[in-house]
């Protein structure tokens, strides 16, 4: 039975990591708190719905289109609005809160208020060590693992990736080295929003879509990046795993709400004793 819980936790962790990675990249490189990150996740899910259910494209093609489109939306938003709020925490919160309202209301107006569902691309269930794992969950785990590895590799081995890490560690130093912060901000926003869209598309196929699904994603994402350390990519991965495993292993033992209180209290304690999170930079 614990194998089942562990696998459930891994599925949650996959989604949490995708959301948190985007949030942490945007925070580290664009330098703002993206309160509308959950709405990027929601829009991502709805774009997949549009292309796969309304226009009949195969699910995975729709997922790729959604990642690209929402990424581009991120670039547009970053260039027009977010760039001017680097380092201005209050301004960024106000601006992105406005985006929450715009995106929720627009999606609700265009797609209608009722619940939507994306037909899952894969069906059936696999038994592993007495635990049952649906193919949808396997897709979540695989896709998020692939995306995370791809991101880690590109950060480690490409020049923009290294430049991004430089910015998130030391903005002034990076600028002095001749790194084009604005261009990398756009790239970070593209990646961040794309990852959120991927998470949304995956969750949309497994569960259901509604215009307000983003709130949950935002709070979980923020919890994860605080836990792991702001701006830290490995931190987001470890934080996501911890939170996912709390979900998977603790929820069946106590009530779900108690599990989330425990999660929050753990985060507050970690913050108090390690103010920069588990893997944050000083």
């Amino acid at each position, binding site marked *: *039975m614990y194998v*089942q*819980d562990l696998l*459930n*936790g891994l*599925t*949650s962790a996959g*989604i949490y990591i995708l959301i948190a990675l985007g949030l942490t990249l945007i925070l580290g490189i664009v330098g703002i708190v993206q309160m509308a990150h959950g709405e990027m996740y929601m829009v991502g899910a709805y774009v997949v719905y549009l292309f796969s259910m309304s226009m009949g494209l195969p699910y995975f093609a729709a997922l790729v289109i959604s990642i690209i489109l929402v990424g581009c939306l991120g670039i547009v938003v970053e*260039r*027009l*609005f977010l760039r001017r709020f680097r380092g201005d925490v209050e301004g960024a919160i106000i601006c992105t809160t406005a985006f929450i309202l*715009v995106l929720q*209301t*627009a999606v*609700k*107006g265009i797609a*209608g*208020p*009722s*619940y939507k*569902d994306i*037909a*899952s691309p894969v*069906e059936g*269930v696999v038994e592993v060590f007495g635990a*049952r794992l*649906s193919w*949808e*969950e396997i897709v979540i785990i695989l896709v998020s693992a692939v995306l995370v590895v791809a991101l880690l590799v590109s950060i480690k081995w490409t020049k923009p990736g290294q430049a991004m890490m430089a910015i998130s560690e030391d903005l002034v130093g990076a600028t002095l080295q001749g790194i084009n912060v604005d261009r990398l901000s756009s790239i970070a926003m593209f990646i961040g929003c794309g990852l959120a869209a991927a998470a949304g598309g995956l*969750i949309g196929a*497994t*569960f*259901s879509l*509604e*215009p*307000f*699904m983003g*709130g*949950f994603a935002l709070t979980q994402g923020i919890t994860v990046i605080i836990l792991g350390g702001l701006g830290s990519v490995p931190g987001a991965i470890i934080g996501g795993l911890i939170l996912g495993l709390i*979900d*998977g292993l603790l*929820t*069946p*033992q106590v*009530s*779900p*709400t108690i599990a*989330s209180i425990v999660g929050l209290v753990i985060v507050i304690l970690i913050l108090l004793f390690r103010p920069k999170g588990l893997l944050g930079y000083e």
Partner: protein
Amino acid sequence: MKRLTVIVLVLSMIVALGLFAAACGSEGETTTSQQGATTTEQGSATTTAPAGGAKVLKIGVTAPLTGPSSSAGIPHMRMTEICADWINENGGIDVNGEKYTIELIIEDEGETPDSGVTAATKLIEQDKVSFIVGTISPQIAAAVASVSEPAKVIRCLWHGEGTNVELNADLPYTFRVSICPHDFAMELLKYHVEAYPEAKNITLLFIDNSAGVILAEQVQEMITSLGLTNVETIMYPVDTQDFSPIISNVMRGKPDAVVCTALPHLMGGILKTARQKGYEGPIYNLSPTSPDTVQKIASPDLSTECIVPAPDLTSPKVPDLMKEMVQKALDKHGEVSWDYIRPFNSLWVLAQAIEAAKTLDTTEVAKAWENMSFKVLEGEGTMGGLETYGINHQAVIPFAITKISGPTMELIKWVTPSIP
């Protein structure tokens, strides 16, 4: 400077989009408010007499139009508009020989008691309405009572969770036409005993809402009285997305049947996850969720043995009038589900109560309403609830039990619960 221009363009696009959307959104309501166009700005009376023709009766509607509850609130609002149009087409409300057409004034009640009170205050004080239809959440219903009851404004709640916060002896002007989870529970459990005589062990899986704990106690009592066993009771938060850990918990108790309360998307999630994780027994929902929405979200192959207290709207057992309304909603908004049809009765029964009272005086209307039998889309209804709530302001109307079995579903029967 260039970027500034683009920003101005984007912002104006947002505003334009908003205005356009509002124009589209208000199209539906213009049909109901044509009559009110000539309303004079006196605002001192509920009714105004346009130059000739029928008089206008303003009825307030408070619905959550923004925020998460709007996925139910907007369909409810749309259906109430359809109901008003339908009543007006059939000659309006007949009050002692005088004909009144209904003009709806719709306000957003938001998600919290304060926004609900603001909306109700606006309707009562600014628009001078004496009748309000609406409100989904019990917290808002309770807070609004502090404004509507002193003003003797009749409220017909859309639905509720069944606590006596919403209906009690101190609220003589509050009524409810729809049926609450605990009234569904007894009938569903009776059906369960008939259909699955071997399945004795029952797990309750309830949303953690204001009625959750009380409802759990009530249902536990019913379970014992029917000779069944309650394995355990699990409460889950309403914003749950992934049900795997919760289902894992449910399956540890090895129940023969699961009884939940769940919104449509939650029900879909529970059903799908339960089947994927290998739980085979019947799953009941005490909330009237649209069976086709549940089936769609859970995917047809996985939605087996799920019983909900709401009708399959395509079934031949659906009454003709309800079919007509389904068609109207489909024609006007391109989609229909039980979330659309369910609130129809609230305005209709209110109109019947006004007709029965033969006056617009709210105290008289309340008195007439308490003792009347009326028509609803499902058939006939009477008032009850004197024992449960201390006041007989709860309607007793039939409801459908629908069983989803994979890609097909069947409306098993219409039953009328007893609400003493």
